[in-house]
């Protein structure tokens, strides 16, 4: 469902007593970055049932026929991946490709969605594909996603018959994703409790330290770092396994791994083999990075009175690798039906 929202009408709105300069607001939807040769614009329509924002980065000059969509990850890690997604979108736009990023936000009526919801993320991707092929006139569409956003992107590529896919440190199995976000939640809670102990606090366990899996079983839902996960959703995600769910994707794909030892992980290797077996054109690459924090985790490091961004170089590198690969593989393929 694509929803038109906040549509601006020319001139100051003088209906009733409200006087909002909607003409200026319409202008502010977009900013140009001439040094990068791109502009960014919040599209008027919104995506999915949650009315996520659609944020376009596109070249100032004539765009290429192939558009890209950056698919957000579905769990709490998304907050730590937004900057990477933005950098990747800008680099792709600088290469001439209109690139839309999906931004879950506050629904005008229902408020801020606080649930982990794979089906909703997939609906947003479908809406985004309609938007770039319809309103923006793209001939072909590729999807980019990191962590479980990569998994969602792969599922959508397969279902919608899209032409290209970039997966950044993807988690191909839903069970592993759940295990990982629960582990990270438990570690965060443990650190919190340990800090309280270490600093002379009571150290009493808080409600959040209860094992999420047990909460799921007994209460039907649990909260993981600020987001609700229901048992039904956990079942849905657990059922995802790209090794069996990818059946028809034959497009080109880039698999980007990130590892302190620079080695390709067995998981990524197996995924690459599978995509090749389906008939796809697969490129795999591994970026060596010390990973101060696991990929998708909070990446600032305290250094005295300064908080240092430990992920900046990696994010730049991933964006560069993505854009370079896309630039080296430009070819137009007809777009499959997306309904």
């Amino acid at each position: 469902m694509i929803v038109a929202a906040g549509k601006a009408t020319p001139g100051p709105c003088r209906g009733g007593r409200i006087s909002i300069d909607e003409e200026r607001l319409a202008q502010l939807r977009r900013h140009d970055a001439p040094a990068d040769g791109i502009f960014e614009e919040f599209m008027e329509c919104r995506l999915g049932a949650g009315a996520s924002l659609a944020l376009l980065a596109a070249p100032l000059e004539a765009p290429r026929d192939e558009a890209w969509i950056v698919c957000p990850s579905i769990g709490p890690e998304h907050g730590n991946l937004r900057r990477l997604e933005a950098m990747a979108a800008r680099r792709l736009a600088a290469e001439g490709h209109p690139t839309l990023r999906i931004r879950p936000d506050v629904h005008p009526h229902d408020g801020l969605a606080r649930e982990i919801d794979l089906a909703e993320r997939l609906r947003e991707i479908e809406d985004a594909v309609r938007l770039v092929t319809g309103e923006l006139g793209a001939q072909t569409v590729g999807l980019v996603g990191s962590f479980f956003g990569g998994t969602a992107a792969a599922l959508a590529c397969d279902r919608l018959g899209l032409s290209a896919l970039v997966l950044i440190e993807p988690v191909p199995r839903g069970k592993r994703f759940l295990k990982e976000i629960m582990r990270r939640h438990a570690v965060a809670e443990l650190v919190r409790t340990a800090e309280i102990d270490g600093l002379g606090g009571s150290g009493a366990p808080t409600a959040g330290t209860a094992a999420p899996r047990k909460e799921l079983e007994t209460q039907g839902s649990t909260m993981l770092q600020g987001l609700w996960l229901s048992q039904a959703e956990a079942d849905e995600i657990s059922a995802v396994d790209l090794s069996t769910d990818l059946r028809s994707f034959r497009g080109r794909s880039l698999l980007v791994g990130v590892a302190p030892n620079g080695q390709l992980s067995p998981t990524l290797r197996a995924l690459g083999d599978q995509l090749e077996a389906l008939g796809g054109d697969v490129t795999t690459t591994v970026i060596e990075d010390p990973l101060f924090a696991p990929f998708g985790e909070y990446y600032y490091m305290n250094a005295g009175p300064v908080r240092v961004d430990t992920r900046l170089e990696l994010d730049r590198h991933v964006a560069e690798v993505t854009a370079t690969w896309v630039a080296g593989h430009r070819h137009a393929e007809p777009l499959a039906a997306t309904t």
Partner: protein
Amino acid sequence: MRQFPIWVPADGGEVAAVLTVPDGEPRGIVLTLAGTGRHVAIGSTMSALVSQRAAEHGLASVRFDYTGVGDSPGIVESWALSDVGSASRQALDVLTTASEVLGVSQYAVVGTCYGSRVALSLVGHPACLGAVCIAPPVLEHGKVVNIGRSAGHGSRFSFVRGNPVIRKAVYDPLRSLLKESKLAPGVRCAFGALDHAKLVFLYSDDHERDQLTGRARAALEKAVASLPEDQRRRFALHVVSAGALTTFEVLPPDEQAMILDLFLPLVDGWFEPSRAEAVLQSA
């Protein structure tokens, strides 16, 4: 309510912002300022929640990603926590734009953690009616704290800190001795704005994580006690029973709602009633 995602020219760059407008005439603007944490929405979860609730109070609100964070372009390699210069300029530019498009000048500020430092830098403006600072650090970091924060795992300092015996014998007394007990300049400066603006400091009972230590509280109370009566009445310190407010994003929704329920009515009261409310009141 209506939402307008926009790009605002700010401090020489552009920042991604969302302006939220109530259905009726906005009585004022609430600017929300995030910490340096993980933010799933533009601004932060706190900012997004405030935007919904502020609209129910007839208030517009604006939230944004700082330069180099989330969707806002730019490169920020590190954040000096006591230097809010750029963030403050960005915030003022965002406020100015919101004020111009809405034709409303009066505003209040709500900030968490680092954002509360930025909020304190904005209360001196005559159009600012007040600030809610969620878990603001009130003391300057002392030397030991700075060394501690910069010591990596495996360092000698981290060994000393991690060993319970040595910690108790050496680290804790040293830390206590060398700890700062002066109010941070930003807090002192903001106290000067109490001649016209309200200040609400909000902490949880997780005092260590929210940095409301005994020393911090004592310094705060001493400073407040030295204020003239009328200014003292414009300051309020609230401590709520909840998880650390520095981790607002991951608090259970009922605790988040309780915190919003506490400060939003206060903020509401800082603004003039709408014309409709004023007519009702006079009747």
